[in-house]
């Protein structure tokens, strides 16, 4: 089979290509019933509550999500800027520590086949989406909260992680206030 090049349109469903939002998408990631892995959801809820209090605050949409890779990429379509909130285990630092960095600074397991038994990496997924002409964010921030207990089902966060929730929400609001971002307009063909 030879490689087809050219036309970007028609490669993916129409509504994946044209939706555009001015807002920053804030996504709390994680599993809400898996101990500290639920911290992304908790921070997202805190951010949502604060935005409601602010009223005429930054233009943001807040969501909670429990998927990665392709599904997460598909969720980001049409947003100029995305902030991901997730638990991380760096093995360094203490539980509740915050790490904030652009996605591009995270290690990219470019060989997606070991990323997960069932999916590809978010980086791979974003590259795929861009190659297909999807309107994907220029700027993806990752706010990680060092987790302690993620191997046991529980709706509770461990105390140091719980204590980090308001601090993490502060950081998200700071990122929102700074603005930035834009739609990445790639043509890899």
């Amino acid at each position, binding site marked *: *089979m*030879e*490689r*087809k*090049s050219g036309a970007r349109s*028609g*490669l*993916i*469903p129409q509504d*994946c290509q044209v939706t555009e939002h001015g807002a920053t998408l804030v996504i709390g*990631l*994680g*599993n*809400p*019933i*898996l101990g500290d*892995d639920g911290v992304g959801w908790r921070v997202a809820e805190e951010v949502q509550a604060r935005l409601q209090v602010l009223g005429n605050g930054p233009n943001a949409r807040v969501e909670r*999500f*429990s*998927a*990665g*890779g*392709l*599904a997460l990429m*598909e969720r980001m379509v049409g947003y100029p800027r995305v902030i991901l909130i*997730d*638990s*991380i*285990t760096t093995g360094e630092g203490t539980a509740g520590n915050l790490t904030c960095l652009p996605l591009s600074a*995270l*290690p*990219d*397991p470019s*060989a*997606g*086949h*070991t*990323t*997960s*038994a*069932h*999916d*590809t*990496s*978010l*980086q*791979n997924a974003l*590259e*795929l*989406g861009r*190659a*297909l002409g*999807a309107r994907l964010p220029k700027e993806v921030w990752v706010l990680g909260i060092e*987790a302690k207990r*993620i*191997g*046991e*089902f*529980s709706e509770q966060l461990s105390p140091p992680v719980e204590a980090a929730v308001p601090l993490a929400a502060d950081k998200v609001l700071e990122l929102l206030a700074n603005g930035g971002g834009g739609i990445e307009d790639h043509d890899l*063909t």
Partner: protein
Amino acid sequence: MTDRITIDPITRLEGHGKIEIFLDDEGNVANTYFQIPELRGFERFCVGRPVEEMPVLTNRICGVCPEAHHMAAAKAADAVYKVVPPPTAKKLRELLYSAFFVTDHTTHFYALSGPDFVMGPQAPVAERNILGVIHKVGLEIGGKVIQARRYGHEVIEIIGGRKVHPCTSIPGGQTRGINEEERTAIEKMGRWAIEFAQFSLQFFADIVLGNQEYLDLILGDIYTHRMHYIGMVDENNHVNFYDGLVSVVDPNGRRLGKYAPEEYRDWIAERVEPWTYLKFPYLRKVGWKGFVGGEDSGIYSATPLSRLNAADGMATPLAQEQYERFFETLGGKPVHQQLAAHWARLIELLYAAERWVELATDPEITGDNFRTVPTETPSEGVGIVEAPRGTLTHHYWTDQRGVLTQVNLIVGTTNNYAPISMSIKKAAENLITKGTVVTEGLLNMVEMAFRSYDPCFGCATHSLPGQMPLEVKITDARGETVEVLRQYC
């Protein structure tokens, strides 16, 4: 004394899987141990909750196939309340489930198993992914994959109320039905899915079946294991993902019987080994004979290949044609070449798409009788569905109020724990001879063994930064580390 090699795939949410390989004095493989992590406490987490919460709670066990847990839980909850959902509800559930299978099998083939074949098993690791595939064969394929996923998610949202984590199945049926407008949209997407599935099978035929090297790989000895197979079948012994009896066949293809969900304990026993948390299910009536195949060993697998082996055919015409071609090409039933699961998965993809349209055009699908309200006192119940990666069994016990007192789950991958362990051992035997280790080959072959079973080791919901590092540790006979090989560590 033996040498010791450790392969340690570690990631935060996929858990800590670990492979230890022990060598004998001559440096050949003596034994392998594959340890799968366990996320603890789910049973305890459930006890004390009302059973009707289980369809939404269990779909959070695992971010990979929440729809499968949703369905198995709903069926188990039906059984706990001794209620039979009306035909419209059953069909709605199966319709949602068919769309889910299309989504899941598509992702698996194109993002995971496809790259091995399209790029070749010896291609650089960095190219063996979905990006490599689209760069090699064209962007259109990527677009179709995204479209198939989108349509699947759309159907799941229409019937299940939410994307990915459906919430409409409850004891006795569904919380809502669909109207004619929704039905028309679902039918249209299903017709596209049939074309896509046919395209995928043609793609597989061109790329894989047309390439002698890949055919040799599939038909070769490394991934061949003679074992028992299980899979759910309908009243005509055709593959069914949502409902029916579980058919059990031996390595010669002889059917040992079929069991109803509530009979699963008569058929399936679980072996405990001291070196791993996870139990090894095996066929009770055949017995546990260790990690060996053959008719005297109760080890079985539950994969797309197993389902095709355990059934007499497919319930839809196009998939049936492919089913016949599959067994003709591979030399009759049952097929023991485990890598053929990738082909079997695509035949199931076509069946799921055809079933999607069949159900979307069923006159009862838009009916307004979509729930039977339970009136019996709840007690105990079992629900079984075929998850994409194996038979999924949920067993619940409740008190008279319907509050859970005990929960037992046998998830898809657990069924395949013993076969995966056997495949890893065989791959290791082929790649380690007299102490010489083919390092890159070892990692790749072990990964290919994983992938053919499409395993789910943890209850992953997502993964950031999203890597599953592999560590291979080689230890000499004196217990000292000779070499440590790492990938993405």
